[in-house]
């Protein structure tokens, strides 16, 4: 069933058991993003120490895809340098733009390659990018501190 390529088990798992959810009391930068067409919201806290993302926590509400995506992203990016995070976000963005033609690089994206199936559903690409867009913003703001 086509739907299963969208709702991979690992995605629904992150949705049910979100990682890094719950905002850190302090942060280098805090951003909030909204998906204007569905109303999904996310607040993201980043703590940047010597160019390393030492903490990435969030709060939000939304569909399984947007929530699972943030959860996986925070897993992936915590502990990475900003430079490494650039490679990862680029790789994820490319995957989501692939319209189902790419399987994603598991070396870089790990579990997030599960989103390959989402890229076949143009209506859901936005959902999966919500957290990543917020991260982009947060990283810029954190660097500006």
């Amino acid at each position, binding site marked *: *069933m*086509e*739907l299963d390529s*969208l*709702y991979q*088990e690992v995605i*629904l*798992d992150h949705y*049910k058991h979100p990682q890094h959810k719950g905002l850190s009391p302090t942060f280098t930068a805090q951003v909030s993003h909204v998906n204007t*067409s*569905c*109303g*999904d*919201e996310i607040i993201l806290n980043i703590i940047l120490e010597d160019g390393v993302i030492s903490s990435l926590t969030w709060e939000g*509400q*939304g*569909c*399984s*895809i947007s929530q699972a995506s943030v959860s996986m992203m925070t897993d992936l990016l915590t502990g990475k340098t900003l430079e490494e995070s650039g490679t990862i976000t680029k790789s994820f963005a490319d995957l989501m733009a692939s319209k189902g033609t790419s399987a994603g690089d598991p070396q870089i994206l790990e579990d997030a390659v599960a989103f390959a199936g989402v890229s076949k*559903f143009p209506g*859901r690409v936005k*959902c999966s990018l919500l957290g990543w867009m917020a991260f982009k913003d947060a990283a810029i703001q954190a660097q500006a501190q």
Partner: protein
Amino acid sequence: MTFSPTDVRKDFPIFNRTIRDGKRLVYLDSGATSQKPLSVIEAESNFYEFHNAAVHRGAHQLAEEATDAYEGARAIVATFLGSPGGSDEIIFTKSATESLNLLAYAMGNAPVGNRFALSSKDRIVVTEMEHHANLIPWQQLSARTGAELSWFKVTPDSRLDLNSIDEVITANTKVVSITHQSNVLGTINPLAAIVKRAHEVGAIVILDACQSVPHMRIDVKALGVDFLAFSGHKALGPTGIGVLWGHMNLLDELPPFLFGGSMIETVTMTSATWAPVPQKFEAGVPNMAQAVGLGAALDYLSGLGMDEVHAHEVELTGYLLDKMKTIPGIRIVGPTNTLLRGGTVSFTIDDIHPHDVGQYLDSQGIAVRTGHHCAWPLAKCMLVPATTRASLYVYNDEVDCDALVDAILGAQKYFGRF
């Protein structure tokens, strides 16, 4: 005798196609936009193939024919709405959104002394269940003029709270702009008391009839409102066409909105005067083919009979609500019976996010809408960040409702796996 949705579907080419690997199309998203019968599609293409020319302008046969077709469509709309002043009270816009913005901007253009001029001494009234198209233009007009924006609240049982009507529509209220039927709740608002109170204090009443004109008989005179807006695309008509109706004496005094060709009387480099209504409000070469298509759409609806259309929807809504109420974990966001209620049914199931519900329904060939439905303040007040919305129309029947209910059960199973 009422019509048969199965027969109606035969008039709509889109029902010949299938969804997601061969599934039957169950289209339950007419609240967003309706499908189009062949007669509408052909009205537009016939215009291009046989009569296309700029109306009111050319000195040639095609221009005459185009003008006849365009003005003929205007006459159809006037009859459909029971316009007391006939065709001249019908203004073609691109959408209800434009119609409502037209009113707000034109009022903003009113000079002191004009009955539409607003100041910080005045009040504008809306409701908490407005679509953004009937909320933000008034927020903006309020910000520009200093007029206060106030609103009717929505009760927990999805109705307008009219208890405080005299405190909401105050003596200084100049504009009351409300939706006829909520595009989220399905609630049909009772207008009589609001119209009475508004006219008592000298306010004009604007009706956002996007979700009522396609679904019930409308008689602007009987409703007693002063302006009415709707979109063609939700009423079996083409995209890119909307209507603003208003009383002639009001349209006469209302300043124009868009400026350009065909809406002028005389022009110099520094000044201009305006053509009579409706031309005053139709600047530029109009959306002619779309107006003609809208005429065909309203003719199609009249052929079914608007009372029959409404009766069909009420009956089907009752059928759907009764079935849905048997599903455990469902919450219907809107009235749970068919009293003063149209065929728009919003709901949530368990804690499955509406977007995921919608996706599952889609995999079964069922088209619905999910989200806040351009009525964010209402969503907040109903304490649901988003809902799934099924909206019924003339081509839907009990089989469609059964398919929806089965698929909701399927979604619960699918997402309950974990």
